[in-house]
């Protein structure tokens, strides 16, 4: 401070003025980091921790001064500066509702006021302390109309994201992801673990995530916009002339959110015996005598005894003495995490920079699962001369995951194995060797845990450089070159003891190079003060090429070397490359009359090498209009005091979905099997020159209202989107040697309503309590398929016309007959049957049931701050999804497989009069007399559970140390925080995790604590 005071007289001597003051909020609290800028001089300062700023060397004159800071309304005033010190204290008004926020709408930014399509935005402040690995998990519950489910709880695992419902049947419904203007490739990911390419970006580097939801907004991305567009923007430096350095450390803990309830060894043995008794011990014909019930019991016990003894228990062991292994204790292993980031940002009028370096090491809650990331973000903006600016944004990341077999009913996936292994098996024999388990020693999960290694390393470069030329203050040209480069290296290693092939190594390298360029001319000009015109004109070109190389070797000299070179027989090698190219020309024109009437029109002409030679290029137009009723004089005259804004929006557009295989349109003689060392070629596909993108048409109407003097805002959107020209495989008679041919037919409709509410509940006496809530209700229906076709297949998810995409076609469960313990279903007439007809025809007993899609999703967040304290609590919810209960229904409640049993088996029918939902235990699929004994083979609605839930997704408490303390230790700020993720779930679902399929790697409960220091 002394130094600064000393400088002031010197500046005064130079006959120029000084503008200084303090910036506070409405409660009088100082706001650090506010940019105060003299517009005419493009000169400014950022406030210090006391909210003070000082701009020196100002030539005498009249200037416009602006102050801006995220979360506050932009401040603007005019000051007269002479030769002395002019004091300008500024009070910033809260802009909790963010009307002055800029929104990125694709190649262009507009203010929130100007938005006329359906765009959701999530900003850095909304997910500041949420301990997640990727941008996708941030969006969950925070953006209305975006449905996100976790694919794997493995740290760094993937998500399934759909925007306004899935509209495709065979192609992907994943949105287009754009990071700082670069379209990100999701091709060729790891085969050893679940992951997402967005792991390359540290969520701490993200400034905002915008989701273009309706087709009118997404049509600027043409043939790639049909599934919505997620635009991720990283942070940038500021022109304050000051450097902000932030260091942050975080530590965390994670564990499983729930477990299966399992039967112990004695229960397991008893039900195995009972089942064999009930079924007449079908296989024990040598000992069984149906006329002698006691003999049946003895025979059944002998069979089960053989099984028990085969797993390493002493011969003749009493059933009561067989120990119980809780295999879940064995697979779950609480994880710890640490995360460090160091950020420097700042700059002046010519150069701005944002640098972020981070390290994260997060252990999963199942053995051997972990995620580590080293990342660097470097964003640099440099003015070259008065017309020319350049910018470079680079994300470098090296991530590594050790994974586990993720999901599915595979006997070596830990979650599956923990349910499959019966309690009578043991990880180790008494002598410490690996024991024989249900699927043999080599699938003993202890052996998987201790000896098998699955590792994955990714190197990613995601960046762009651009050159911007400003012709005039209303016309600029920007040329951007983007690179998205990713190498995914996998290794799976089984030492000799864990392999019957004398040890084996699998290695894979998958390299994807995705480069793109776009060149955009932008204009923005106001005529006669009321006619605001802006627009863009541009082109984009993208090429993506992947090289995939995998190798498999066997025969290792020892367990120490784990590379292909160490194998004696590097015997399976495969490699291929694949490529696609796309190009597009696009334009957008916006016109706004006096802030009242806003119209915007978009068009894109797109082509892709993926499509048939006759249909390679297509045109995607879109248009929106908005009317800000609240700006009309008649409205103002109504004097609805509390209403600040009413905006009506309507939009219509078309987009395309080109997420199909790179060469799906061409007829091919493709690589098939090999014989006698020669690789075969076969007619692998019939070509279709007319094959092209799937097309989405969407109409969106919306209403934005702000009332209660800005204390409450609501955004409502309703949409109807038809995805037409769906790529379906038209089935051909299989005797032709082909299953079908790809054709553009079929259509799916999605429609829904979204509501977003933001409110300021309390804003007084230093207490600020805000709430944001969103809800989306969505449904879909298949409108048409191949001509004359009513369903795509005859299975349990038939994709039938008139039904939702995932609707299930199954019989209805009627429960267990209390008289005899047999399972019952309703037939087509609503009568009880033991043998429902499950094939097409007049006697079909199946009907449609709700499928796996979410019907209602959303979130509720509350933020309360007082003095330095901020408390955030965020709930996320999902209703209407149903899940097939693999473990709970199919494997865990029947003794048929001699696999582990859930404690649900206690509900199995035992004697006449028992009212229950599980049949009597039985080995075999039909009871004597021919009725179905095993409800598993007749998958009815009882095989599925409603996975609706409300989850306390995130809770964070943070505390900013008062400046009085931080000043003493020469720091600009210190913040302490603690947060939790997936803390509690309200659900009737009995599986491990309602977010996932039954046997997947479940999400974890996480608790984190951290400290952030500003220098």
């Amino acid at each position, binding site marked *: 401070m002394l130094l600064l005071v000393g400088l002031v007289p010197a500046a005064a001597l130079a006959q120029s003025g000084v503008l200084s003051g303090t910036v506070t909020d409405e409660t009088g609290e100082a706001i650090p980091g506010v940019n105060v800028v003299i517009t005419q001089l493009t000169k400014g300062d950022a406030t210090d921790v006391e909210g003070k700023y000082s701009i020196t060397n100002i030539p005498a004159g009249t200037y416009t001064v602006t102050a801006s800071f995220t979360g506050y309304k932009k401040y603007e005033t005019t000051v007269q500066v002479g030769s002395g010190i002019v004091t300008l204290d500024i009070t910033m008004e809260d802009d909790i509702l963010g009307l002055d926020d800029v929104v990125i709408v694709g190649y262009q930014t507009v203010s929130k006021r100007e938005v006329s399509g359906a765009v959701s935005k999530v900003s850095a402040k909304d997910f500041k302390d949420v301990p997640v690995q990727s941008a996708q998990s941030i969006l969950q519950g925070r953006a209305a109309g975006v449905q996100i489910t976790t694919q794997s709880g493995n740290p760094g695992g993937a998500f399934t994201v759909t925007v306004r419902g899935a509209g495709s049947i065979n192609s992907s419904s994943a949105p287009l992801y754009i990071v700082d203007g670069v379209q990100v490739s999701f091709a060729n990911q790891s085969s050893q673990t679940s992951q997402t390419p967005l792991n390359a970006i540290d969520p701490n580097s993200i400034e905002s995530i915008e989701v273009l939801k309706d087709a009118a907004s997404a049509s600027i991305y043409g043939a790639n916009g049909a599934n919505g567009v997620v635009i991720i923007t990283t942070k940038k430096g500021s022109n304050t002339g000051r450097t902000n350095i932030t260091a942050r450390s975080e530590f965390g803990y994670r564990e499983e959110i729930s477990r299966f309830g399992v039967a112990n060894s004695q229960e397991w043995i008893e039900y195995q015996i009972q089942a064999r008794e009930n079924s007449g011990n*079908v*296989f*024990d014909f*040598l000992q069984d005598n149906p006329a002698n019930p006691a003999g049946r019991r003895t025979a059944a016990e002998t069979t089960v005894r*053989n*099984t028990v003894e085969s797993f390493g228990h002493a011969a003749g062991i009493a059933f009561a003495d067989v120990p119980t292994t809780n295999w879940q204790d064995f697979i779950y292993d609480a994880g710890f995490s640490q995360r460090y980031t160091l950020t420097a940002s700042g700059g002046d009028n010519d150069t701005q920079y944002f640098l972020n370096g981070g390290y994260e090491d997060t252990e999963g809650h199942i053995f051997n699962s972990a995620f580590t990331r080293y990342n660097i973000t470097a964003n640099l903006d440099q003015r070259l001369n008065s017309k020319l600016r350049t910018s470079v944004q680079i994300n470098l990341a090296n991530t590594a995951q050790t994974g586990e077999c993720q999901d599915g009913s595979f006997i070596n996936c830990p979650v599956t194995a923990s349910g499959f292994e019966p309690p009578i098996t043991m990880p180790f024999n008494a002598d410490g060797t690996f024991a*024989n388990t249900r699927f043999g*020693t080599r699938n003993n999960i202890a052996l998987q845990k201790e000896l098998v290694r699955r590792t994955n390393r990714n190197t990613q470069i995601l960046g762009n450089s651009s050159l911007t030329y400003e*012709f*005039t203050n209303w016309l600029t040209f920007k040329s951007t070159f983007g690179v998205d480069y990713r190498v995914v290296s996998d290794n799976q290693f089984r030492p000799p003891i864990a392999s*019957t092939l004398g040890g084996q190594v699998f290695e894979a390298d998958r390299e994807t190079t995705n480069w793109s360029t776009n*060149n955009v001319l932008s204009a923005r000009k106001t005529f006669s003060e009321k006619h605001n015109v802006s627009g863009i*004109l541009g*082109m984009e*070109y993208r090429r993506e090429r992947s090289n995939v190389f995998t190798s*498999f070797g*066997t025969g290792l000299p020892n367990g120490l070397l784990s590379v292909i070179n160490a194998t004696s*027989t590097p015997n*399976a090698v495969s490699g291929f490359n*694949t*490529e696609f*190219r796309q*190009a597009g020309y696009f334009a957008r024109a916006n016109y706004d009359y006096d802030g009242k009437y806003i119209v915007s029109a978009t068009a894109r002409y797109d*082509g*892709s*090498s993926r499509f048939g030679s006759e249909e*390679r*290029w297509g045109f995607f137009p879109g248009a929106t209009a908005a009317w800000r009723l609240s700006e009309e004089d008649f409205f103002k005259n109504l004097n609805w005091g509390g209403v600040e804004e009413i905006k009506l929006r309507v939009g219509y557009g078309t987009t395309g979905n080109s997420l199909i295989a*790179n*060469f799906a349109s*061409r*007829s*091919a*003689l*493709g*690589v*098939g*099997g*090999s*014989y*006698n060392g*020669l*690789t*075969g*070629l*076969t*007619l692998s596909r019939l070509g279709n020159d007319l094959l092209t993108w799937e097309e989405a048409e969407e109409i969106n109407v919306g209403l934005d209202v702000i009332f209660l003097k800005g204390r409450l805002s609501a955004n409502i959107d309703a949409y109807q989107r038809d995805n037409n020209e769906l790529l379906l495989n038209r*089935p051909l*008679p*299989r*005797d*032709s*040697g*082909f299953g079908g*041919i790809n054709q553009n037919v079929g259509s799916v409709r999605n429609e829904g309503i979204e509501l977003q509410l933001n409110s300021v509940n309390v804003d007084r006496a230093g207490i600020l309590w805000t709430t944001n809530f969103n809800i989306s209700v969505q449904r879909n229906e298949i409108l048409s398929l191949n001509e004359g076709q009513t369903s795509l297949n*005859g299975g349990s998810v038939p994709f039938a016309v008139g039904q939702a995409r995932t609707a299930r076609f199954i019989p209805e469960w009627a429960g267990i007959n209390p008289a005899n313990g047999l399972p019952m279903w309703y037939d087509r007439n609503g009568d009880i049957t033991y043998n429902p007809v499950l094939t097409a025809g007049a006697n079909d007993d199946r009907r449609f049931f709700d499928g796996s899609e979410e019907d209602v999703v959303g979130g509720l967040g509350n933020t309360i701050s007082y003095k330095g304290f901020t408390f955030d609590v965020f709930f996320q919810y999902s209703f209407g999804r149903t899940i097939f209960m693999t473990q709970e229904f199919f494997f865990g409640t029947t003794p048929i*497989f*001699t696999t582990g049993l859930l404690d649900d088996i206690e509900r199995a029918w035992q004697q006449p009069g028992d009212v229950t939902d599980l049949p009597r235990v039985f080995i075999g*699929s*039909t009871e004597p007399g021919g009725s179905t004994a095993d409800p598993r083979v007749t998958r009815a609605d009882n095989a599925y559970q409603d996975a609706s839930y409300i989850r306390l997704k995130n809770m964070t408490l943070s505390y900013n140390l008062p400046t009085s303390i931080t000043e003493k230790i020469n720091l600009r700020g210190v913040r302490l925080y603690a947060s939790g993720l997936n803390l509690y779930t309200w659900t009737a679902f009995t599986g491990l995790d309602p977010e996932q399929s039954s046997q997947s790697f479940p999400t974890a409960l996480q608790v984190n604590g951290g400290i952030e220091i500003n220098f």
Partner: protein
Amino acid sequence: MNKLRNIALLLVAVLSIQACTEILEDVEPSTEITPEVGLADPGAIAAVRANMYSRLHAFAFTTELMLAPEAFADNITSRDGSSRFRGQAFNNVRSGMNDGAYGVAYLLINDANLLAEGIPDGVITDALRNQYRGEALVLRAFAHFVLVRGFGYEPGQEVSGFNLGVIVRTEPVVGLSDADTRARSTNAEVYTQMNADLNAAIALLDNSSSRNFVTQSFAQGLLARINLYEGNHAGANAAATAALAGTSAALATTAQVATMFDETAFAINPEALFETLLANPAAEGQGVNSSLNAYTASQWVAQIPTPGLLALYDPADARNAWYSACDDNGTGPDTDNPAQAIAGCTAINGGLELNKWNGELGQFADNIPLMRVSELLLIQAEARLSGGIADPLTPINTLRAQRGVAALGAVTLADILNERRMEFVGEGQRGFDLKRLGMTMTKDPGLTAPDVPYTDFRILNDFASGDLDTNEDLIQNPGY
């Protein structure tokens, strides 16, 4: 003016790219070529042939072909705790005898048709083209045979006069218009086509190829088998005799019986007229979920010999060496491994598994003979006995001599069928032996599942609903 010039330059730069629609061209797949390019290249033609053979690696031409018909009958059964081919053991509707072949058989047929009919003149020598054509005709007949015996009755054995066979394809499908919808041919028409294909092939082929490829003798052997199925006993006897005369395969001696299926003892089974080579032995062969080895001797040990079958063997029978303790011995020659004992075998058959498919080539990897010399001998015996042709006894006694069991003094059909059970266990013959003779599908008397009368609809495979939906001309089998 400068401003205008800049704008003009810019527009030129942006729009000039617009003209170049070629920017989307020159993108070619790395694992495919166009059919026109491929069939004009000798290497690619050889690759089409390799692909045709590789179709025989399919589950439906290996494990299902070899086990499902046996499981539906009385040779092998499902072990307690295993679900693989369990439906066949319990006569479940739609379990089928090799019904999985429906799709893959036509893939093989299309490859064969492309090789037989689609090769342009002058790309390869006439001799090579004839050889490839002969091989293709034999495999086309083989695929049609696998289909027609599963989906239709044998000619003369129709139930209620139902005589439909399967759809016959003799031209390659290269374009959309070739993929027309067709009706099922009658069983007699399918047999006529197979006879014609095999006779044409016999004229085109010789026995110079390795027995890992189709030879003239295999074509004759397959003709013998097909003739036996259609009740043409004279033809069967003649074709079997011709096959035996020409082949370099020979009946295994008593000492060889135990190891004839062991690839470490014999590069090719000494009795095999045609043995398919596994694609990539060291990489787990057909894999843990599909291989014959994993179904019978390792991992799942899902299908084990029935006590009724085991009781047929004389203690001196050399074929007793094909059985060993029921355990998961992993790869290589069987070594009894009590630590990996499989639960549930003891109760059924005293604790034995079948070791014909033992994974000697690598984990879960075996080469599979599709026809052996012993079958030719038993075809001769049966054709002569049933056709009233002289000397049915010599062929069966020739076989028995090398199996270490006493010669028969007289032979009955029951003797021949029992010999076939003992000889071809795990080779997919038993269920179809009963069916082709119009006999009841017997179950092992010790097991609870009832016998299936020949007139029961489950004797024929059913067509999948998807196939019926796609092709209105396809008539479902009765009862489904």
